């Protein structure tokens, strides 16, 4: 979670609020923040660390692991209408990449601001060309995009 905390100023600039969730109590969140995470990121965790001790939130999102009694590593991007736009779920041993999450948020924001008239191709980064889906684009994506453009 310190990786997300480190990029929190950037997320705030994008108008994104962050909530982290685990089955630990808010008391344990305090101990983890104060004793370890605050040594990884200056000032500690700047967002709300939520406690889901009975797994109710995790169950609602399909990330509750019944056998081990913890949450899987689930990441949800939720838009201003409360609609889930992206889901990523990993098993515990592999960490996320926050840069990819930020890239996806920027892409979803672009699409939303265009009123759904734009789409972002594979590997799109801010500043790269976007697609304008419509009859004129059918069979002609190759003219504006190809896999070698992905950095």
């Amino acid at each position, binding site marked *: 979670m310190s990786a997300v905390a480190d990029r929190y100023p950037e997320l705030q600039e994008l108008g994104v609020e*962050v*909530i982290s969730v685990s089955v630990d109590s808010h008391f344990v*969140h*305090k101990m983890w923040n104060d004793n370890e995470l605050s040594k990884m990121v200056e000032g500690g965790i700047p967002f709300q660390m939520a406690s889901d001790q009975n797994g109710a939130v995790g169950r609602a999102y*399909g990330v509750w692991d019944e056998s081990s009694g913890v949450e899987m590593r689930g990441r949800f991007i*939720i*838009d*201003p209408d409360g609609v889930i736009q992206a889901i990523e779920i990993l098993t515990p041993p592999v960490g996320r990449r926050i840069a990819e999450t930020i890239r996806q948020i920027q892409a979803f924001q672009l699409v939303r601001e265009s009123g759904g008239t734009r789409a972002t191709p594979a590997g799109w980064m801010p500043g790269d060309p976007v697609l304008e889906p419509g009859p004129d684009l059918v069979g002609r994506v190759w003219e504006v995009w190809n896999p070698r453009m992905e950095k």
Partner: protein
Amino acid sequence: MGVRVGQQAPDFTAATYHRGEFGSVNLSDHAGKWVLLCFYPGDFTFV
């Protein structure tokens, strides 16, 4: 149980630790904003 993309995110209420204070959060507190919701297996785990 579970959710899919394109669906409404389930609202929830949970106890929180936030910048030195105990409190609570509802997802709906942040209606009108983008929200990044991150679950993880546990505090003091290694990843």
